[in-house]
């Protein structure tokens, strides 16, 4: 099973080609902006390094968020584009799930992932010792996220962890992982069932839009 995986949803551009659980090539650069420029050349470089062509892949894996709205769309537009261009299935995974899975390789402890949602908020999702999500990701202020975590011994990871950490109970301990790694994404995706439809984005936060009063009419 050959998988091309990539994530651009948070503060990195991560691309991997994996074959039967083994990482053939990995590109992993931290960047806050610029994924729309970096991603496709990084994919080409990684594929070259792995000595694999698009036609030889079995599936594509892409992180679907939550994260930066733009980052989510950069990855998904590329993933879905490669999907229609190659005819290969495209598997979408939550960014939180990929980060939790990497953290749990080392710790196998219950893991809470906090991703920077800007505007002083984080996207929070918790995973039990078996890596099963306890709820859908939610968009919360750091204080509210700390309330959700309570005094349970979570390992707190993700690039939003630094925002939440000051507010948590001493039972919650900081972990190492901040962003998703495409190798982990590839290996998770390798065992997933093939979906009937292309993956959809997970934004969590609705778009900012308010309808004008009376449709903007000056008079009724």
């Amino acid at each position, binding site marked *: 099973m050959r998988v091309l995986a990539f994530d651009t949803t948070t503060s990195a551009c991560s691309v991997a080609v994996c074959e039967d659980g083994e990482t053939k090539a990995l590109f992993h650069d931290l960047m806050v902006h610029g994924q*729309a420029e970096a991603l*496709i050349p990084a994919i080409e470089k990684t594929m070259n390094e792995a000595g694999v062509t698009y036609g030889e892949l079995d599936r594509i894996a892409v992180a679907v968020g939550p994260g930066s709205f733009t980052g989510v769309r950069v990855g998904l537009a590329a993933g879905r584009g*490669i999907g229609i261009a190659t005819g290969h299935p495209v598997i979408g995974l939550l960014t939180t799930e990929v980060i939790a899975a990497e953290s749990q390789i080392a710790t196998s402890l219950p893991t809470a992932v906090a991703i920077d949602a800007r505007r002083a908020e984080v996207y929070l999702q918790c995973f039990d010792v078996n890596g099963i999500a306890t709820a859908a990701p939610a968009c919360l202020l750091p204080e509210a996220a700390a309330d959700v975590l309570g005094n349970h011994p979570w390992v707190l990871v993700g690039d939003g962890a630094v925002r939440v950490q000051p507010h948590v109970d001493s039972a919650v301990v900081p972990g190492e992982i901040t962003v998703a790694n495409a190798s982990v994404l590839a290996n998770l995706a390798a065992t997933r069932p093939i979906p009937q439809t292309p993956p959809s984005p997970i934004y969590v936060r609705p778009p*900012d839009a308010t309808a004008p009063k009376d*449709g903007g009419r000056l008079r009724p």
Partner: protein
Amino acid sequence: MRVLGIETSCDETAVAIVEERQGGRRCLAHALSSQIEEHRPFGGVVPEIAARTHLDRLDQLVERAMSDAGIEYDSLDGIAATAGPGLIGGVIVGVMTAKALSSVHRKPFIAVNHLEGHALTARFTDDVAYPYLLLLVSGGHCQLLEVKGVGHYQRLGTTLDDAAGECFDKAAKMLGLGFPGGPAVEQAAQSGQADRFDLPRPLKGRDGCDFSFSGLKTAVRHTVEALPAGSLQKQDAVDLAASLQAAVVAHIVDRCSNGFEMVENTPTAFVAAGGVAANIALRTAMDQVAEDHGVPFVVPPVELCTDNAVMIAWAGLERLTLGLTDPLDFKPKPRWPLDAANA
């Protein structure tokens, strides 16, 4: 030569495939999905909703265009996408999809300036020769350009504030005529009396061919406020729509006439493009301006005046023919003036 083009810079998601052979040029497929319904409740385009909707729809539109054309990716010579100017969230969706297709099938990627798409449409539809004078009037733009060749544009004038379509849209909102405002104003104007309200003629008598519409928008507001108290009467609304349309048309005529004095070379034609060019009163007036200057007036069919992907595929094809392609690390640009002097 065959190029697939993608347009996602505003509220239309579109994919087209165009071809040029010895015998001529044609559009093999055009799949377009408008987001008017998604934005209607907000009375204008909401950028984040637009970006989300483009992502939801674009891959299926690519597949539909390919199957409508009945061709394989291998038979394409290039992949073009609007890379700016426009709402950046949507532009990124189109650019990433195009880059992915380009990377997988090893076809050149062409980053097209949306305005260049509008500017070159008349060459696709009417084979207009350079140089020509172009009036671009849409919801986001209002400018007069001398088109000298692919990549060679001289901007003679632009709007100092709002675009013409924006003026119609905002006025229609104030008058409760609906969204999008241009067609609503035009329809209302049919039963209105254009000389009922004396709206200003912006920049009248001033040199140059810059445009200004925000004063008209304010004048509409003041006129409504000055009406007797109570709800806005239907007749008042349609008369105001007619007066506004007349003022907008008169302003554009005045500016375009000045534009003819400013061109470097005698134009072969006067071309109009952009959604507002659908307006019949404006077309009739522009036709007269062209005749006064002894050149033909060319306006593409309405579906190629408003945002579409045929113009992007065609501009991509014209660029590709000249060897103008772009690297896969091309950065999408929210702002991207057509003339290098202003870049």
